[in-house]
């Protein structure tokens, strides 16, 4: 193995670990103030929405072929998840719709 890339990968690993470990170590071992608990109650909704929507609405190149199937599929996922309270079947239905529409749109 060449030394160059391996040193770089160790550095990348350290940089990544520095985003994962510090707050887990610090915050797991102390009592949180009430305002921070309310902040954390909102955080999953904010983060998961921020992860999901750009993936659906800003797919990059080949905009029509990607965009067209994803938007109705996203609406289907949201509707099914709210109606059933289940996670798996909305995902399966959404992925199926995307694959089917892409086969049609090309």
């Amino acid at each position: 193995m060449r030394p160059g890339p391996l040193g770089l990968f160790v550095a990348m690993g350290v940089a990544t670990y520095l985003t994962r470990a510090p707050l887990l170590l610090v915050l797991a071992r102390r009592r949180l103030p009430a305002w921070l608990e309310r902040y954390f109650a909102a955080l999953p909704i904010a983060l998961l929405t921020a992860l999901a929507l750009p993936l659906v609405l800003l797919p990059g190149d080949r905009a029509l072929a990607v965009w067209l199937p994803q938007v109705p599929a996203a609406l289907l996922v949201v509707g099914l998840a709210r109606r059933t309270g289940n996670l798996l079947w909305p995902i399966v239905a959404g992925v199926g719709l995307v694959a089917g529409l892409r086969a049609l749109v090309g």
Partner: protein
Amino acid sequence: MSASSRAELWAGARDALITVVPSILAYGAVWGGLARQAGLSLGELVAMCLLVSAGTAQFVALPMLTAGAPAALIVLTTYIVNLRHYLMAANLAPYFTRLSRPRLALLAHGISDEAYALTLARFARRPSTVAYFVGCAATVYLAWYLGTVGGALVGGRIPSPERFGLDFVFPAVFLAIVAREVRARWQWLVAGAAAAIALAVAVGVGGAWHIAVAGLLASTLGVWLAPASSGGASGGRL
């Protein structure tokens, strides 16, 4: 390990397996194929996966490696792409109060978008356990590793995951969790603010800032609007 811990471990592994693992394997295989084309040996790409284990950052790094970008720039970019982990780690921490420091240090390496999302979706509805997160995170970690090695071994002969809609699994998981849990008005406001900020930053700034910025800012609404009993680990709500 107690029987209930084993059951929780398996529940985490199972939930990851039936939702995100097929896509992680597929995109791992794509990355493995691209990494070989970028000139990485099998040992090098295995090292990168085990050490970094962050799909988005690894996808961003490959073209930079090929283009001969300075190492410092690649490391900085990796750090910026992964900034969102700070928020996920902070969010998970209150559920892991009884763990020793070495165990927390080990657990930290397993934090990923998928393990975070599935774990908090579970904790919103059932008692929180460390074992569930471990089962989920280890399965995601292993799937990424196996996918990349598989992709490296078969090279560029993998059909595009988009053909099967597998790219849509990631937003679908996140959307389904949010859609299932958002009920109260303040939660809608947080989701709406996060959506607006994320899209504005993604369009206006580009790069990988939008997730961390939208998560950080939109959650501040919770400080004012969330009811007092809704606090993460004690309230048990998403």
